[in-house]
C-alpha cells in the first residue's frame, strides 16, 4: 500500500508542461495572478482572486499526488481546510507585508517593497520588545525547568494516593490562560489580594506588585511558571520511569554513590526529554500573550510588553496592518526554526526509545 506512494517512479512533470497535475506551473501562475491582483484591483476583489488562485494550486497538488493510493483523498479535506484557514491567510499577509496598507483606511494597498521590514528592523521599540520577550522567556523557562524537575523527582516515586496528588499538580496546565490571568490578577490585587496582604503582614505597608517593572515581570513569570512547570514534570517523569530498574540494581551492586548513579544512569535517560521540554516551552513562552494581556497589559508603561502583545497593538490598536504583518513574518521565522529543532530532537529520541 504504502510503497505505491513512496516508489512513485513517474518522471516529474516539466514546469512548462500544460497538465492539471503540474502544480509547479500552477503555483507560478497563482503567484503572478495574486501579485497583479493585489496591485491592480481593490482589496476585496484581490482577496477573492487570491483565494481562488491558492485553491487552484491545492487542487493541482492533489491531482498530482493521486496515484493508486487513497492517501491523497484521505488527507485532502484536512489540507484544504488548513490551506484556507492558515496557509492562505499567511501567504496573503506575506504579500501585504510588501505593501503600505491600513485596515481602517479605504486607500488601496500601495507597493512599497521591503520598506515595512526596514521600518520594523530599524525600530528601537521592536528591539526593546524583543528584549522584554527574551527576559520573559529566560526567566519563565528556567523557573519551569527547575520546578518541574524537582516535582518530577517527587512524583517519580510510587506512593499511595500518587494519582490523586498528581491530579492536583497537573490541573494548572489544563486551565485557560484567561482563568490563570484572572486568578493572579486577583492575588496581586493591592488591597485584598492574597499576595499583597501576605507582604503587608511583614512590611506593614501596602504592597503593589505591579507598581515596579521588576515586580510586574515577576508577576508574569510566577503565573506562567506555575501553570507550566507540571509540563516539564510530565516529560521528566516519562524519562525517569523509562530507566530500566536493573541498571540501578547493577549500580547498587557496584556501590555507586547517589550522584554517580544520577550522572551516569538517570541523566542520560532524561537528557533528550529535558531538551524537548526546553524547546517546547521556549516556543510557547516566545508567543506569550494572554497572561501578559490579562495580568499587566504590558505595564507599568511598556515594561512587560512582549513581542506578541506589541504585534497585537500594532495591528489592532495602531492599525499599521502591513507593518504588523512584516513583524509577524520575522516571528514566524523564529518559530519555524525552533519547531524544526524540536521535531528533529523528538524524532531522534523516538528512534532511541
Amino acid at each position: 500500500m504504502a510503497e505505491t506512494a513512496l516508489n512513485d517512479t513517474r518522471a516529474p512533470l516539466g514546469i512548462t508542461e500544460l497538465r492539471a497535475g503540474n502544480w509547479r506551473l500552477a503555483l507560478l501562475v497563482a503567484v503572478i495572478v495574486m501579485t497583479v491582483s493585489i496591485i491592480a484591483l481593490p482589496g476585496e476583489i484581490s482577496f477573492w482572486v487570491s483565494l481562488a488562485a491558492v485553491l487552484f494550486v491545492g487542487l493541482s497538488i492533489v491531482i498530482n499526488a493521486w496515484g493508486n493510493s487513497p492517501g491523497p483523498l484521505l488527507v485532502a479535506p484536512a489540507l484544504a481546510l488548513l490551506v484556507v484557514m492558515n496557509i492562505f491567510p499567511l501567504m496573503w499577509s506575506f504579500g501585504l507585508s510588501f505593501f503600505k496598507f491600513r485596515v481602517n483606511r479605504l486607500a488601496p494597498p500601495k507597493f512599497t517593497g521591503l520598506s515595512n521590514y526596514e521600518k520594523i528592523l530599524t525600530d528601537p521599540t521592536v528591539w526593546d520588545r524583543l528584549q522584554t520577550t527574551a527576559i520573559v522567556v529566560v526567566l519563565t523557562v528556567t523557573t519551569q525547568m527547575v520546578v518541574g524537575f524537582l516535582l518530577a523527582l517527587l512524583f517519580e516515586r510510587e506512593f499511595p494516593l500518587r494519582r490523586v496528588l498528581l491530579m492536583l499538580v497537573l490541573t494548572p496546565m489544563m486551565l485557560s490562560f484567561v482563568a490563570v490571568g484572572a486568578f493572579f490578577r486577583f492575588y496581586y490585587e493591592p488591597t485584598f489580594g492574597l499576595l499583597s496582604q501576605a507582604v503587608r503582614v511583614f512590611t506593614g505597608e501596602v504592597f503593589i506588585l505591579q507598581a515596579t517593572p521588576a515586580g510586574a515581570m515577576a508577576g508574569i513569570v510566577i503565573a506562567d511558571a506555575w501553570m507550566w512547570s507540571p509540563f516539564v514534570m510530565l516529560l521528566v517523569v516519562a524519562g525517569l520511569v523509562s530507566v530500566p530498574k536493573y541498571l540501578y540494581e547493577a549500580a547498587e551492586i557496584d556501590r555507586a554513590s547517589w550522584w554517580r548513579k544520577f550522572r551516569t544512569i538517570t541523566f542520560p535517560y532524561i537528557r533528550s526529554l529535558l531538551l524537548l521540554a526546553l524547546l517546547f516551552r521556549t516556543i510557547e513562552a516566545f508567543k506569550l500573550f494572554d497572561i501578559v494581556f490579562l495580568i499587566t497589559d504590558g505595564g507599568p508603561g511598556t515594561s512587560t510588553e512582549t513581542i506578541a502583545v506589541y504585534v497585537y497593538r500594532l495591528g489592532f490598536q495602531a492599525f499599521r496592518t502591513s507593518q504588523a504583518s512584516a513583524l509577524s513574518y520575522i516571528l514566524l521565522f523564529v518559530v519555524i526554526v525552533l519547531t524544526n529543532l524540536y521535531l528533529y530532537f523528538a524524532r531522534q529520541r523516538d528512534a532511541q526509545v
Partner: protein
Amino acid sequence: MSTIALHNLTKRFGTLTAVDDIDLEVSAGEVLCLLGPSGCGKTTTLRMVAGLETATAGDVVIGGERVNHLTAAQRNVAMAFQFYALYPSLTVADNLAYPLHAEPIAEAERDRRVAQVAEVLELTHVLRRLPGQLAEGEKQRVSVGRAIIRDPNCFLFDEPLSRLDVQLRETMRGQIKEVLSNLKKATVIVTHDQFEALTMADRIAVMRDGVIEQVASPHDIFAKPSNIFVASFIGTPQMNLIPATILEPTQGVSNFDIGSQHIAIALKHRLRPGDRITLGIRPRSFELVAQQGPETILADVDLIEPMGAETLFHLAMQDHELRVVVDRARRASVGERLAVRFRPEHTHIFDANQQLMQP
C-alpha cells in the same frame, strides 16, 4: 573466607511463597548452579544473596558474617545480570571501571585493571565503544568483566548465557569456567539450562516451587536423581518414566507389570509385591535385541528423529511411549515392532512418593 550460607531462607510476595525455607552452603572456590524451570525461585534466591531483595525469614551469611541487614553495596558482592545491565551512556572501559570508583585506588591502577580484565575477556579492541555498538557476546563478556574486576566476597551470575546463541554459549561456558576457577571465590550461577549447569558447576542445586529438590555434583545429579522431578528435568532426551506394579519375584529376579506386559529384571532393591513404583530409564540405557525374552519390552516404532550421531526412536507401547536412543547406523521403519532391553544397573526406581529407592 569467601563463603555463602543460607539458613531457612524464605521469601514471600504477598500470599505467594517464592522461596520456601531453603538451606544451602557454598564453600570458597566452589561454583554452585541453581537450576530449575522459570518461576521456581532461583532468581529470587540469588537476589536475596545480593541484597536486592529482603528475606522474609531466615539468614544470608556471607564470609561467615550474617548480612541480612546490609544493603547490596555494603555486602560487597559482584553480580552479572541477565540483561547485562550495561550502563548505556558509558563506554566499555568506563563500564568495566564503574565498580572500582567505590574503592580508594589511583586512576593509573584503575586503568591497569581495566586493561587486564579486557585482556582476559578479549575486549581490548572494543574498550572505546558504547554498549549499544557491541555484539551480544561482547556485551555478555563486559558484564562478566564488570563482576570480576573487583575483589568481592562472592560472585553471582543471573542467567549469564541465556541471551547468547547456541555456538557462542558453548565457547562462553568454557571461558567463564576457566576465569572462575582462577578466582577462588564462592560463586552462584542461576540458570534454567541444564547443560550450562552440568558443564560449569561444581555442585548443582535443583529447585522447584521455591524448594531445593536436590544438591549434588553434576555427575551424581545425573546418575542418582533423588526424585522423579530431578530425574525428568536433567538429561535429554528426557528419562523414560514407566509406572509399574511389582509382582511376586521368581528366583531372585523382580517381576514388574508395566501395563501391557510383564518384564523380569534382577534388582537389588527391597521390593514388596503389590507396590506401585515408577521405573526410570534413560533413553541411552536401552539396547535393541533380536530375541524376545522375559527382560525385554515390545513396542512399535512411532516416530523417528535423527539427532546426528544418534537416532531417537519414539516407541509406542499401548498407552505409553518409550524414548530410545540408538546408534545412527541402526535403521528402522515406522510401524516396525522392536524388542528392547535395559540394564538393571542403569535403572532408577522411584517409590509411590516419587523418591528414589536405594538398592
